[in-house]
């Protein structure tokens, strides 16, 4: 038996293996964030509730906090919203909202109707700051440490699992 004859079979099996991995791999899955372990980009944006006031991440230095990108037009954000309200009650970490390319009235209405999990929300109406953060969609959540460095990013709606297994332990560790 010629060993060479086995080569096409082996190649075929390898190819099938690649296809198999490819099928199980979500092409729209999460991408590694380019900003992970880098300082959170600085910004100064008006607050949603009171646009005469601004907020800047500098004010949070020395604290571990969450920045949650959301919008009233974003369906997955609505799914995530009740969870955020619940997490905010547990008071394990302050959650700041980043209202992205949204209509102010619609955003305020959503918070009034469904509860407000955010300490405060900033409005990035034209989406400029979102580009600095590499935002590709909503919702997105960032964990920022006491030095103002991004330590975690989730480009999916938060759920019980992510919150308990990833965010809470990380916040605990960063607070030590």
């Amino acid at each position, binding site marked *: 038996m010629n060993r*060479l004859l086995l080569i096409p079979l082996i190649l075929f099996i390898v190819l099938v293996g690649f296809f198999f991995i490819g099928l199980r791999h979500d092409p729209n899955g999460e991408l590694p964030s*380019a900003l992970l372990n880098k300082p959170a980009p600085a910004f100064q944006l008006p607050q949603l509730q009171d646009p005469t006031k601004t907020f800047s991440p500098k004010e949070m230095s020395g604290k571990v906090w969450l920045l949650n990108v959301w919008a009233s037009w974003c369906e997955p954000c609505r799914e995530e919203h009740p969870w955020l309200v619940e997490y905010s009650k547990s008071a394990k970490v302050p959650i700041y909202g980043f209202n992205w390319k949204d209509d102010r009235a619609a955003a305020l209405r959503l918070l009034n109707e469904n509860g407000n999990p955010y300490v405060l929300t900033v409005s990035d109406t034209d989406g400029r700051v*979102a580009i600095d953060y590499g935002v590709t969609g909503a919702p997105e959540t960032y964990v920022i440490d006491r030095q103002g460095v991004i330590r975690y990013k989730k480009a999916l709606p938060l759920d019980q699992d992510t919150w308990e297994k990833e965010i809470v332990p990380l916040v605990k560790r960063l607070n030590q």
Partner: protein
Amino acid sequence: MKQFAFAITLVFIVGGLFPMRAQPADDAQLEQRMQALTQQLRCLVCRNETLADSPADVAEDLRRQIREQMKAGKSDQEIIAFLHERYGDFVLYKPPVKSTTYLLWFGPFVLLIGGTFMLYQYLKQRREMIADKPLSAAERKRAEELLTKDIT
């Protein structure tokens, strides 16, 4: 009917020649440069589209920002660096050569060299197989025996 079909065809042809794009007429050159640059960049929302072609909202924002940076006199390299810093390697259709992409860049050449080597080995082996080799004394003797043997 024929004329109607002709009119429709004309609409499509002419429409194809002038794509609907927000295009500031006074700055056609800049727009052209923007198009050329965004052709090499990937949209992060519709992952298989270039930044030039994507209709996504984020892509529109990025194109706006690229236009502004071009107006501000930034070079293409600087703009690519700006996007790379924020969105990572994924934004580049041409990934940089680094340890995690060695396989991607050099894999095909390794396969090519390996394949050439295998082909060479195979051809060499085949030449040896088809070459006329004189029989040795022992082989000749055995052949004669076989041929003269009584078939009964």
